[in-house]
């Protein structure tokens, strides 16, 4: 039985044992030991429901979308557009015209940089980001600056790993043409109180893009309540497939933006003299899309919604509290990023044991964590560290897995400390 059905309609806490049975990979062993998968901020695992939805599509209904009048093409189109509606509902967008399927968060941000930013920005204009950003929310803006002559401004962070709001507000100026911020920091787990930042930017008429890659899997996201202009996220961090992600954009902005890529599906009529572009959202979806990926993402949303985003957030918060308490007992362990409001991500260093060695030693104990710069080198530089170890939890993790993490850290300390 699917754990979703077991708990649906109940207000009780999640039945983690039943949930774990929904995830085939959690049954495997690593080096003879059960897998403790604590690298969810890099990529989550998939429940059988997602894998089955994609297999079923390929086995029974695959054809190209928006093209054929035959049955399979119609079925594929219905499934694909059905997934778009699931995404719309999940993040509470006004309309499916505001939901653009892309490869992932990175592509979504690049789309905004090139389609929104490139035609509108020029020398003297500024793009404002924060020091916490993932490289995917830095590099596309640097490229845009090179192309347009605009300048990148960076709001500083505090020692606890929070974006300094006052410094951010002071950097907002008539030159600021776009704000791009993480909703949740991938390296540290900090939840940025984005409403305040969005309000400050929008009162000055500056549009705001949020990088929601780490937020969407762990909390309820309502783009209308947030009042942001763009919101980007990836399927694979929220129990969906790799290769699919979403750009939400406010319709008034998307309508005015030129297409990013040209090709099939994004046109209404083509002649050698003139091409008429398709309407939203298809204007931004050139070529055959990742149909199975979108369907898998839709299935992941169904799965998460059946569990309930609030219960997921509560379960993950309990894991975070437990991890903080238990990791604090490990001698020589230092937390990196201590904001009071955090997603279930713990970044840390261990005295005299390099994170890279930790990664190898923990893997030998069956515990998978991320070690390195987490694609956020400026954050590492800020703390004067070459790298950290990062354990990141999903609702299917257990306190017992955190105990294994702690035990493995003590082993590492004994071996190398």
């Amino acid at each position, binding site marked *: 039985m699917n754990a979703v059905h077991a708990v649906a309609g109940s207000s009780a806490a999640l039945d983690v044992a039943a949930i774990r049975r929904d995830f085939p990979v959690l049954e495997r062993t690593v080096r003879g030991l059960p897998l403790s998968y604590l690298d969810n901020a890099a990529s989550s695992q998939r429940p059988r429901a997602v894998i089955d939805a994609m297999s079923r599509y390929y086995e029974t209904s695959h054809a190209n979308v928006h093209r054929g009048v035959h049955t399979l093409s119609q079925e594929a189109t219905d499934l694909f557009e059905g997934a778009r509606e699931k995404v719309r509902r999940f993040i509470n967008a006004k309309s499916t015209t505001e939901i653009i399927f892309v490869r992932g968060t990175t592509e979504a941000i690049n789309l905004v940089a090139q389609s929104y930013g490139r035609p509108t920005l020029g020398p003297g204009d500024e793009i404002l980001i924060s020091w916490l950003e993932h490289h995917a929310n830095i590099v596309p803006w640097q490229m845009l600056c090179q192309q347009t002559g605009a300048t990148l401004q960076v709001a500083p962070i505090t020692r606890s790993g929070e974006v300094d709001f006052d410094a951010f507000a002071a950097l907002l100026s008539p030159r600021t043409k776009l704000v791009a911020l993480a909703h949740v920091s991938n390296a540290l787990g900090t939840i940025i109180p984005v409403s305040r930042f969005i309000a400050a930017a929008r009162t000055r008429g500056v549009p705001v893009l949020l990088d929601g890659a780490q937020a969407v899997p762990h909390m309820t996201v309502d783009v209308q309540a947030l009042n942001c202009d763009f919101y980007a996220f990836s399927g694979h961090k929220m129990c969906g497939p790799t290769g699919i992600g979403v750009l939400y954009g406010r319709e008034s902005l998307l309508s005015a933006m030129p297409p990013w890529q040209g090709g099939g599906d994004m046109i209404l009529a083509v002649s050698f003299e003139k091409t008429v572009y398709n309407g939203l959202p298809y204007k931004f979806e050139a070529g055959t899309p990742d149909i199975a990926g979108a369907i898998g993402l839709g299935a992941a949303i169904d799965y998460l919604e059946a569990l309930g985003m609030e219960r997921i957030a509560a379960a993950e918060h309990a894991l975070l509290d437990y991890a903080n308490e238990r990791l604090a007992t490990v001698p020589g362990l230092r937390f990196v990023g201590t904001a009071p409001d955090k997603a279930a991500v713990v970044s840390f260093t261990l005295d005299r044991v390099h994170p*890279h060695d930790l990664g190898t030693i923990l893997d*030998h104990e069956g515990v998978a964590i991320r070690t390195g710069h987490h694609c956020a080198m400026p954050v590492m530089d800020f703390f004067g560290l070459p790298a950290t170890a990062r354990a990141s939890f999903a609702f299917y993790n257990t306190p017992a897995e955190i105990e294994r993490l702690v035990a493995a850290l003590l082993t590492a300390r004994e*071996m190398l400390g």
Partner: protein
Amino acid sequence: MDLKDLYRDVIVDHNRHPRNFREIPDADRRADGFNPLCGDKLTVFVKLDGGRISDVAFNGSGCAISIASASLLTESVKGRTIAEAEGLFSQMHQLLTRDDVEVDVSSLGKLGALSGVREFPARVKCASLCWHTLDAALHQQQQVSTE
């Protein structure tokens, strides 16, 4: 594969107490090595006397494998000719990356302690960074990256 095959006593010792961990201010050659994957950064300094390496040292930061490998490197190439050091580099490269080639570990002395690294593909670059950096220094390149 046991972890002890990777973190052998010699490696743990050289990580805790790296040899020749210092700068040579009047080095004849120096190069920086960087492994962007894990953030390891090493600088290798070489003092030459004719064609012979009269002194060699390193500093920087890195994981146990990269620090121990660099420490072992300094011990094994000091006093050797450039040609001999390059021969060792080639042998180490084979030891770390080729499981289809028999390397005479006994001829490598303490460097043989790194033979377990081959079984941990993600860690090969850690062990080889210092060798690439030494090679760059000897060929008078300023910088080397494992990517």
